[in-house]
């Protein structure tokens, strides 16, 4: 039974950009007193997007800068609520955060494991049970009780990956973060993601590199100016993919 894990139904995300930026209350009050309102222009980051991702599928998302890839991931990660349309998720979504996001560099590795777990919605108790396997996978060893500011960026990346993936998420969002760390860890993380796929996790991968989409994904989605240009099997989409020059 492969049920849809992510259903995106006619989703539009509209940003409202003030025509001239009015960053202060003072200026806003002056304008209001003069009887001039604030003029906005509406900008659609995503327009009428509809697609679904089934359980166990790995979907690659490609497109040039400004095509709406990050906005789409933010909608799926529930950071942004769609202006119109509907998003439905079945299961827990774990975004692999950018390097160091969600870490407090003054705190120790151990404290950060609990902090990062809490950010992902896990209780303290659940994290205490996972501590050993996270430490083992990340390979931070003796640095566990040292402040994270003493870590190399590779260690931070490993720890972040280990926390986010220790409990198998139903949906994993990977935003070009798979290329971090040394080669040994890359092999380990690639192996873990392969294992997730085999066990039925749904994975979203965003990449500028069509070759890696072709290698990793079953299906691919080509975004252009906030709409779907093409969706289909990864090889078909990647072969036709010709990125637009970024719109000004």
């Amino acid at each position, binding site marked *: 039974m492969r049920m849809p894990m992510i259903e995106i139904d006619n989703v539009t995300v509209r940003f409202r950009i003030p025509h001239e930026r009015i960053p202060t209350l003072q200026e806003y009050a002056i304008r209001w007193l003069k009887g001039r309102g604030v003029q906005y222009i509406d900008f659609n980051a995503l327009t009428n997007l509809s697609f679904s991702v089934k359980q166990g599928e790995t979907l690659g998302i490609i497109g040039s800068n400004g095509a709406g890839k990050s906005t789409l991931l933010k909608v799926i990660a529930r950071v942004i609520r769609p202006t119109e349309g509907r*998003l439905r998720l079945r*299961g*827990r979504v774990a975004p692999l955060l950018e390097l160091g996001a969600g870490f407090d560099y003054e705190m120790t590795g151990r404290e950060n494991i609990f*902090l990062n777990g809490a950010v992902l919605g896990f209780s303290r108790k659940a994290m205490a049970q996972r501590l050993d396997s996270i430490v083992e996978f990340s390979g931070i060893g003796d640095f566990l009780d040292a402040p994270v500011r003493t870590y190399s960026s590779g260690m931070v990346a490993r720890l972040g990956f280990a926390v986010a993936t220790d409990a198998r998420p139903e949906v994993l969002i990977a935003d070009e973060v798979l290329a971090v760390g040394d080669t040994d860890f890359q092999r380990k993380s690639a192996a873990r993601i392969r294992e997730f796929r085999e066990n039925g996790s749904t994975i979203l991968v965003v990449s500028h590199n069509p070759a890696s989409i072709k290698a990793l994904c079953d299906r691919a989605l080509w975004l252009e100016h906030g709409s779907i240009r093409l969706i289909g099997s990864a090889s078909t989409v990647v072969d036709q993919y010709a990125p637009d020059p970024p719109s000004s």
Partner: protein
Amino acid sequence: MTDRTAITDGLRESTQALAFEYDSARSSAPFIDEFVQLVRYRDLVILLAGNILKNRYKRSLLGILWMLLNPLLQTIVLAIAFGTLFNSALPHYPIYLLSGLLAWSFMTQTVQYAMGIMATGSSLLKRIYIPRATYVVAVVSNGLVNLLISIMPLAMIVLVLQHPVSTSWLFLPVSIFILALFTLGLSLLLATAAVFFNDSIDIYQIVIQAGFFLTPIMYPPSVLPETAQSWLVLNPFFAFIDLFRAPIYTGTIPDIHVIATASTLALATLLVGWGVFTHKADQLAYRL
């Protein structure tokens, strides 16, 4: 969808964290949904509140001892400066001063911290879903812990000056609870403003600076001219300070009118603050 089903849905989610379903069309009551989510993420709130405390004193020599020394030093300086002025009207002036100062700092510093953290320090809200009120609630919890700790130096001064201690101290938890509700409401309200307008914090600081001198914190209300005394009812902070100070300084349960005013004000502020914050919460990710 009614609020009641939203609550039961939320509770079901919280008991089986790994199997929840999310539907963007369903969450139609952010006022309640935000609360349910905060309960789910309570461990995050506790961790963040603790981290604020640890970070502030982590790299300083005296560490947590500063939390005790700070109010003591502040009181000594101000008591030397103004003690002689008010000593006849206010016996044991340092106790009057510090109890007012603690309530005032708890309210105003917490709000300012909450505004700052929403305006600058919350890039996490742009990257991953966590309840939007997480940081504000953590800041207020941290402020509350600070207040409780600084009651210790206050008690020390009370002992040193041999100020009478009565059973009215038992009313303090009620006072602190009402103060915390008000502070949370004001923090939510002004943190929202801080996200939308850069100069909110500057305006706030000016108002608070003026407010410090317009509120009877280091002087008794009786030194004000009579017309100014009647205006004092319009100063919301005065009721809250009185609520905290009366059980300690005068050894009495606060006046029933003060309790009623403060409770009503606290509840109203919290409802408005929570309403505005949760209403605007979806726009925060665009704005931050």
